[in-house]
């Protein structure tokens, strides 16, 4: 996966628009979109800022760490503090995270 694809994937998972993230980075949306389309590479300082906003590491965005590889596991988007733990496949986990994203959006919509 390219740097741009990783940034885009995490941005969407965090429910952020390109405008919102560009504003946090003090840049315009068009320039930010170049990073996601891999037509420009963010300089190291910018990469660090993007990683902070996306709650990840620059190493993850650069593809130096991959989920389940190099001993580094990406944190789940949502933490379910449940009474009975279940081992889930990555497909089931993705399905659960996507449902929770919808539920959180609905539950907190009047705040946005």
């Amino acid at each position: 996966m390219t740097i741009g694809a990783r940034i885009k994937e995490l941005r969407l998972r965090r429910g952020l628009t390109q405008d919102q993230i560009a504003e946090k980075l003090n840049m315009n949306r068009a320039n930010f979109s170049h990073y996601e389309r891999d037509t420009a590479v963010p300089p190291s300082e910018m990469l660090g800022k993007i990683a902070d906003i996306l709650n990840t590491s620059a190493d993850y965005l650069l593809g130096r760490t991959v989920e389940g590889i190099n001993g580094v596991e990406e944190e789940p988007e949502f933490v379910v503090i449940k009474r009975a733990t279940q081992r889930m496949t990555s497909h089931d986990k993705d399905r659960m995270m996507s449902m929770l994203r919808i539920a959180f959006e609905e539950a907190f919509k009047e705040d946005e």
Partner: protein
Amino acid sequence: MSRSDYKRATNSAYSVIRAYNINKIPVCLDHIINRLPDLRLMTYTSFAELNGVSIDEVIDDYDEYGSLVFDPFFGRYLILYNNLKSFDVVRFTIAHELGHYFLKHKGHNEANDKEANCFARNLLCPLPALDVVNQTDYFCLSSIFGISWSAAATRICFIHLDRYHLNEELYNSIDAILGRPFFIDYNFAVI
């Protein structure tokens, strides 16, 4: 395996009662939840409809009763609860999940669950109010405090342990507002 910190769980429940000015029995959980900007409730029915799945699938994915979900990115929480359970079971479920919330549990294990149960029984059935009621009949406690018979039985089982852990100053401050019979409102329709 980590051990449950019953002292912390017990005193947290009474700190919440004091902080949120709970002065009526049965304890109104909505009164607390409405004052927590980072927490929302959602029924299993709403969750299922929203995602186009059945209630059974929700139960399979989460729990028969409910779950607290934490969104670390935005620092917010969602309590999903099975609204098809009886009213008093729902109340205990929500109080249990509030226990996870106030005790800042970040994962599931048996010790955390026991702490959340301890928090819930003390929140819903506080000792100063129980002392005023002076009852050990499960049916009676169940109707006064809005808890199930089995929760009432557990409440009685742990009464000495909880009294041992409860800070005296906290008991007295709660007793001043809760431990009076005229504050007890038997006609409840609260979550």
